[in-house]
């Protein structure tokens, strides 16, 4: 009997000796590919994707409304695209979509216990994490850029005159910035989903608390928000000369702060570093995670 420090030895008939030599893990690239393929299909079948799709139709509807009801208000396609990216995609749509697919990318599988099947395969945990993350980033980029593509279609249909080199350049630039934003935010939210058991609240606090607060503070403090760097990368709508009192006051304040513009390369670097760091932290967190069910 075993009161403490139980020692058990149980052996049946001697079977064939196990093969010698350590079996190799699955090559990481192949494993990432399989997991990403499986995960994209899984995420694409989630019900929440329908809600996200509907939310992403809002800018398309806005562009459609402008074309139908406000054709003569001077809102050119160029201006619409700048406004959409600066005021709709970057501050709202990118964080919402990235949050919806990011926080659940890893966390949901740990929570429901299905990760046990990938954890008991010869696949390294970084490959599991990166496969899931790539899938989530792919879905987020796909949703957002599809919305942007639909906006483009609405803008140019029956109005081919708007397709100028400048407009195409702006469109491609916006496309890239939105993709970069989706990749960065998704990496950050995926890491949150790995560390927190209930990651939605911290993710909301970050996206709509911290980001809005910091992005609204002038001078260099703004650079502590992803939103600022994304907005810095897209062209802003021309503001014109302020004629009203609040406009003039705002212009005076900006002049007084005399903020140097942040170069584009710095914004790209910051976003890329945040994405890579978040992925590395997520990988490290997953290494330490344990199955809960």
């Amino acid at each position, binding site marked *: 009997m075993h009161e403490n420090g139980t020692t058990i030895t149980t052996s049946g008939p001697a079977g064939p*000796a196990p093969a010698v030599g350590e079996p190799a893990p699955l090559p990481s690239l192949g494993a990432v590919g399989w997991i990403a393929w499986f995960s994209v299909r899984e995420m694409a079948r989630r019900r929440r994707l329908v809600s996200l799709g509907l939310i992403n139709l809002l800018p398309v509807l806005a562009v459609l409304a402008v074309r139908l009801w406000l054709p003569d208000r001077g809102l050119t396609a160029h201006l619409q695209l700048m406004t959409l990216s600066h005021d709709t995609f970057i501050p709202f749509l990118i964080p919402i979509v990235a949050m919806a697919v990011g926080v659940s990318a890893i966390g949901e599988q740990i929570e429901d216990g299905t990760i046990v099947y990938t954890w008991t395969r010869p696949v390294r945990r970084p490959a599991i994490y990166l496969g899931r993350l790539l899938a989530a980033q792919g879905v987020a980029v796909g949703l957002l850029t599809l919305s942007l593509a639909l906006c483009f279609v609405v803008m140019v249909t029956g109005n081919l005159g708007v397709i100028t080199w400048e407009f195409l350049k702006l469109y491609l630039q916006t496309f890239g910035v939105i993709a970069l934003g989706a990749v960065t935010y998704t990496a950050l939210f995926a890491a949150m989903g790995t560390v927190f058991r209930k990651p939605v609240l911290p993710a909301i606090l970050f996206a709509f608390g911290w980001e809005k607060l910091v992005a609204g503070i002038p001078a260099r403090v703004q650079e502590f928000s992803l939103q600022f760097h994304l907005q810095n990368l897209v062209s802003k709508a021309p503001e014109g000369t302020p004629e009203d009192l609040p406009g003039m006051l705002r212009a005076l304040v900006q002049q007084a702060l005399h903020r140097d513009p942040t170069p584009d390369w710095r914004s790209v670097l910051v976003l890329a570093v945040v994405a890579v760091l978040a992925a590395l932290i997520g990988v490290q967190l997953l290494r330490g995670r344990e199955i809960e069910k």
Partner: protein
Amino acid sequence: MSAGAAANRDQARISATGVGKWFGEVIAVNNCTLRVGAGVVGLLGANGAGKSTLFKMLAGLIEPSCGEVRVLGARLRDRVGWYRRVGFCPESDALPEWMTGREYLSLMLRLMGFDGAETRRRTDRWLERFDLAAAAGRRLGGYSKGMRQKLKLAQALAHDPDVIFLDEPLNGMDPMSRKDAITLVGDLGRQGRTVLVSSHILPEIESMTDQIILIDRGRVLAEGSVAEIRDKIPEHPTTVALVSPDPRALAAFLIGREHVEGVRIDDQGRVVVHTGHAVAFYRALPGWVRDHGLVVTEILTLDDSLEAVFQYLTER
């Protein structure tokens, strides 16, 4: 620890040394050391006894709070290549509901490193083996509990592992599937694989193996065959049937004797004795027979079952 078992110690494919796991103030597994070689070994314990936690530690899914776990000589958590030779069937019912049975099993095999042709061959073979071929194209969300259980077993076995962990594998299976799975587990053991199978249902374990590890409240209580365990409990109670040409005289003599707690004659004419101290009773019986001119032609232990052993050990 038995001598034979000790001799096989070096061949242990699963080993745990001083392993414990606690969650906050709750001790799930307490200072457990075990070595398991080839064959089928049952891990028996009530719900919440710590079986699944022990399984998860052995399979590298959770880190022990203390002690060390090795499977095929390696720490699975760090050396994931060894999972090619390990099969794990979890107790949890979680499966990716949106996938079909075929997709799921194929993916599991792909992640084991098989190429497309071999994956298809094994997927077909194991779906067939568990009578799931007809449902292979259906989504797992529509599978019954028994079908899900069979698919979980299939993913644990389809890559021909040497070491197999089966956590409550018969849950939810219909009687025919249950019988089939029990036969399969026995076959795996006879093939020389190491199968560690857990259950809280005693007849299930008894039907699969004679080798057991009893676990209760996070502590391993006993190991070995049912008979070996009984031998290790000197004062264990038991029920014995004595066959005699004169059962009435034998019964009358035994009433009130030391270590005898109850005597009756059953419908087969045997004298059924309940003793609170089996070893002492067996030691005294030959003397009584010799000194008092009694005749006993056969002695049968009636409750040498796992249930009796388990109840006794967990209630102590």
